[in-house]
């Protein structure tokens, strides 16, 4: 918006100046001689810059000035046949080349002056990024320093800047120079992860502090272990898997939260999964015990990056056999007692499935979970009508069949 305003102003001024030229052309009959008197063409930013011209007549041609920030027209003051053009501050405070031209119809004088920055730094403009990099030496962050003078002009080329950073026990100091207005330094990571503090200094002015996190690289292979209260397949206890401390190839412990997949291949060929995230490099994951005898081969992965050894677990069958009792016209089927490895009642929740077949066709499947070591199925006459059926009862990976039981 502000730029727009400047443009509009410039355009208006241009229009006005063209108008001025026209009127001048009409007024001007005789040839005027205007000469630049000022010899100096290099100024320091902030100086008062006045361009002096000699003239023969009392005319006041406008001067068109332009630098990289914009353009303007300047009206001179005419004293004793001398024209004084004083540059406004918004031009004289900015470094760089400034082009001027007298808008006079007859004599075409133009020129260029150079404005150079002050040498005293007052402020440091500093930027750094990215704020986190990976350990290992290839990844880097870049510090950009722009020492500026009191008028916010970047200091001259080859101003020396000291880039400093602290990492672990070491403080490095590098000397760099500004080029194309800025000084920059790429700081590569080291093999260790950790926190790096970065600052810079130029002409006795110091920047603020920046923080760079050097994060560990991708993990390398690791080992896993399992911890279980017992090795019985009771369907109730949990096995806890743990990894060794996950480290990257430089020996840094990986970031907290790194995701580890524990893949369990069972003896039946199915793949079970459990997951853990690391804390201080160790990921833990839990898995509930199967309710039937099983062999597990467990291997953990950090997908595409690292993997563990394979460990094996064997779960012993706890329920060797179970009783089934038919009562109340064979309509109540009591399964149990379901006993665990010390003959204790199995913890509540063991699933028992009852399949009812008629002429080898599955009529109904009922699933119930055990309470106090027993499961009771009540077959309602309106669901299972009076007839004879085959029953199969499955639990804990074992099954019992009862053929042609008659319900009445």
């Amino acid at each position, binding site marked *: 918006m502000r730029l727009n305003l400047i443009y509009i102003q410039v355009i208006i001024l241009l229009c006005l100046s063209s108008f001025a030229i026209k009127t001048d052309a009409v007024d001007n009959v005789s040839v005027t001689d205007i000469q630049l008197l000022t010899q100096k063409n290099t100024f320091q930013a902030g100086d008062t810059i006045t361009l002096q011209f000699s003239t023969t007549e009392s005319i006041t041609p406008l001067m068109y000035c332009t630098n990289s920030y914009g353009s303007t027209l300047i009206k001179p003051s005419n004293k004793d046949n001398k024209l004084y053009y004083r540059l406004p501050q918004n031009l004289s405070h900015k470094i760089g080349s400034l082009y001027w031209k007298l808008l006079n119809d007859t004599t075409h004088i133009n020129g260029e002056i150079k404005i150079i920055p002050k040498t005293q730094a007052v402020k440091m403009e500093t*930027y750094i*990024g*990215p*704020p*986190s990099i*990976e350990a290992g030496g*290839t*990844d880097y962050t870049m510090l950009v320093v722009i020492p500026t003078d009191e008028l916010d002009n970047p200091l001259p080329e080859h101003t020396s800047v000291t880039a400093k950073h602290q990492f672990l026990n070491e403080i490095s100091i590098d000397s760099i120079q500004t080029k194309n207005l800025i000084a920059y330094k790429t700081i590569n990571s080291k093999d260790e992860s950790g926190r790096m503090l970065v600052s810079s200094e130029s002409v006795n002015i110091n920047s603020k502090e920046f923080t760079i996190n050097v*994060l*560990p690289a*991708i*993990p390398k292979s690791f080992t896993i272990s399992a911890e279980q209260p017992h090795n019985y397949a009771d369907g*109730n*206890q*949990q096995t806890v898997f743990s990894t060794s401390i996950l480290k990257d190839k430089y020996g840094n412990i*990986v*970031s*907290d*939260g*790194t*995701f*580890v*997949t524990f*893949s369990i291949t069972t003896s039946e*060929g*199915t*793949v*079970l*999964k*459990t*997951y853990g*995230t*690391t*804390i201080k490099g160790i990921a*833990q*994951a*839990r*898995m*509930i015990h*199967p309710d039937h005898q099983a062999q597990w081969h467990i*291997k953990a*992965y*950090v*997908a*595409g*990056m*690292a*993997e563990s050894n394979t460990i094996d677990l064997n779960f012993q069958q706890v329920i060797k056999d179970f009783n089934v009792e038919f009562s109340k016209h064979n309509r109540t089927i009591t399964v149990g007692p379901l006993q665990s490895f010390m003959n204790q009642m199995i*913890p*509540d*929740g063991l699933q028992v499935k009852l399949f009812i077949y008629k002429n080898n066709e599955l009529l109904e499947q009922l699933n*119930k*979970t*055990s*309470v106090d070591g027993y499961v009771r199925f009540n077959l*309602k*006459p*309106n*669901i299972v009508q009076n007839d004879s059926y085959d029953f199969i009862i499955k639990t804990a990976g074992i099954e019992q069949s009862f053929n042609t039981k008659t319900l009445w």
Partner: protein
Amino acid sequence: MKEITNKYLIVAILLGLIFHGSSLFFTLETTYDALIHLFFADHYTNSWFEPWNYKWYTGFSVMGYPPLVHQAIALFSMIGGLKFGLFTVTIISILLFITGVYRFSLLITTNRTSAGYAALLAVFSSSFIETLHIFGQLPSIIGISVLMHALPEIYSWLKTGKYWYLATSLSLIAVTVTSHHVTPIFGMVFFIFPLIGMLIMDHAREQVKSMKAITFKVFLNSFSKLLKRIIKFGIASLIIIIGCILPYWINSKNNPITQVPIPHGSRDNFLEVTSSGLVFFLIPWGILLLLLPYIFYRYYSKRYLFFGLSITILTLLGTGGTTPIPKFLLGETAFNILTLDRFTLWASIMALPLFGEFTFRFVQGDLKSLIQLKFGAVYHRICGGVLAGLFIFMTIFTMSLGYFRPSQPQKIKMQPIVNFLNQDDHYKWRFLTLGFGDQMAWLSSQTNAMTVDGNYHSARRLPELTTRPIERLENSKFKGVAGIGSLQQFLTTPEKYNLKYTFSNDKFYDPILYFCGWQRLRQLENGIMVWERLNVPPIPSVLPKDDVPKWQKILWGVIPITTVLIAFLLNIQMLLVNTLRTKPKIIPEFLKFKSNYSKFSNSVLRISHIWSVILVLVFIYNIYNFYIKNDAQRHPENVILSYYDALDFKEFETAYQLINPASNKTIAQYMLEVSVTDGLLSSYAKLDAIETKILNQNDSSATVKVKTNWITPLEKINRVDYKSLSKINDKWYLEPDDIDTDLPPDQLFSNNATGYFNQGRRRITTEQTHHEDVLKQPVLEVLSAKLVKLDNSYAIIGEIQNIDNVPADVILKGTLYNDSNKVLATYNAKYHIKHKLMPKETSAFKINFEGIAWSQTQDSIPKAFNPDEFTPVEFEEQPTKFNLHAAGNVSSSDLYKRIVISDIEMNSKHINGTLFNSGIQEVTIPQLLVTYYDENKSITWVDHKFLEEGIRQQRKQDFNYKLMDNTPIQVITDRMDNVFVNGLPNTSISNKVVPNRIENHIYTQLQPINHSEFSYIKIETNAYIGNPN
């Protein structure tokens, strides 16, 4: 003739102001429309002459609604705020209505007492109360009231030909049209045409000796004499109607309503949808239903013949979809656009004069003497008592309808939301409200922030909205598949609308927000949950608008108020002249045609009696039916229906009453069992349809097959349950279901997890993107990506990994191109991805390309609800390549990864398995992401499944997943040249961070399956946690 003050009118005005004036403070804000008008008024207070409003629908023009009422509210709001303006204008509308009814009644009945009665009855008429206190249709009320004021003036102009009357009538019509556009158009047909008819009758009556002597020839003769005035009036009023709101007509011509019609209760079959019948037929007619024979008898007398025709058509049109007649009369298009309840409103208003007349004759006229003569004085009194009682009942019932059946959610305190939007530049994004009802309009008028939604559906512009029959996204759960479908599109691609914040007042929408990639920010102090979506750019500072010429803006801003001023000046002068007696009082022409109230027709009385008896019988029959249907334990099916109904409305105590008391289940036990069930079905489902079938039944027990359809925000769930019932003491009871008795291994257990908090390092400043505050975007890597085609729909599938050291929120955006690099479609990943990834975690993904559904064939909109349904984009050209943009942002919420797969069993069609929740959060909705691979272990398809039940901590949950059919999947391309992560090419990131990727890692973990199309699958888990603790 000395004129006395009409005491009935005075009483009516006083009662009306007291009754409505005091009650409207409790009703108006919860009506459907009042807050919308308030929002429009707010627009005019801010920019009177600028019709473009940015706040709703990504910008719309307020020229879509006549401005007078809104501008009036805006003017009054200068004194005491918007609500003051609203109430003031409402009170004025009440005044206008009562006086309007009086003048109209006087015109019709030509009897001041009758008209006085009519005004008194109008105050309490159920249709007026409903329109004002339940619907809040202010412009409609003001429109019809001013039209009623205009009618006597029109009559006088046509009768006398004095131009003064032409001016007054036109001035009033101008006010009508600037407050409500539909009223004068239909008012012309239904009020003014019959009025002209009546006038010609009156004119003809003057030519002959008696009413009977008017023949068609005499009528035609009078008509030709009056034709010139009629034409003058017709042309002038047409000019007024068009001219006064010319910008409105231009606007509707430029933006024709091309939307899919929105279902409205007034178009229902009232016999099928009884609630619509109650609201749109029974309530507005009210006690007038009893008097229908009298009303029709009177209106079909010769003088009122044309009113008779008019009220007949209005009555028929008001019956909506009950009979095919309205559709036939109006035509398909008009039938689907108009809300038909207004016809009933007009019919009931047209009946008011005769209601007044009837009351007059019943209370002190010939009807009284007739009844007393025939049936005795006691009967007359009883009749009067019954009628008055019914009338009062209807009034109270209508008034309190909003109390018993609230049309709006509880009043929401807006200040916390307004403060939230003002904080930290939150207003720089659009917001969305969910479950706010019409209060969203009130929020919009309090904040400068913009919403993608809106509450004036005619102004919708986004095709995502206009192609769906929904009023607003806000209440999309009530609009079935179309509603949720539309909402999903907005939630999946919110960056398209700069939509970043969602205020949810209904937890129903939480799962859809979560699975579309949104995250909870915090709960405001008014209980509203704020959801946000990452990676959404702010609204650009310059927004597009449809500009209109300056003259239109000036017309729009100036004319409406001017019409009021002119009408006021013209009509108030008449009143002053009359009151101050500066000129001899002019008796209105119509008062010359006195009605004869000396002999009430015997047959009408008889028919009225018969009619009343019929109505009473119908009423009793319906009540009986209602009782039978609702007697819960009379029949096994009733028990099932009542039980499911109770569960649906979470009335667990009622549900418990239906459980067999012999099962020894205490209410404490029952409630405990209810409290431990959570999940999609028990917490987020709404019962849509239920079908029961008795499989077998004997004297003491029954088995019922119950088929239920549940609407959930994510998908439609169809269930089949078998319920057993027992009969005890002649009452049926449900047998309780078995519960899962699974016991967890631990009493108390611990679980360590990494927590994250992003606070930035910014000083307390409003400076944007302060460098220290900007976090690095987590680096992701797309491991594989393919464009595939299944049947006719295209999808991009693949796998993605968070290869950074911080958790990432992942947003995937895919674009399809044809051979000549033309963009064909763009969409984001919705359900088929884990939106939150821990460091080094992988997720399969799929981007479905959804079109703006049904844009091609409007008639193919399915009636049934299925939120999961999606319409594939119809491509004109074949997509051959794709690009994929992945954006990662640091996220610290919803990082629960503790759902493990603890058992799997499978055959060639199904996978049965068990999930185990090994962590410390209760999982509300578990999701399975199933990836299919071919024999080369190359990814071919990604599918998902939501589990209906939640998983408590350390518990197991069985699942059954049906494998895909043998549909061949065609791989269009697997070139990954155009895959970008955070704007950088995927390959360069991959080479830098993971240069030596172990390629076969994922493959070693695949589950082989026995399937003809696919060889392996991978199952991943994702979970929505409803109440994180």
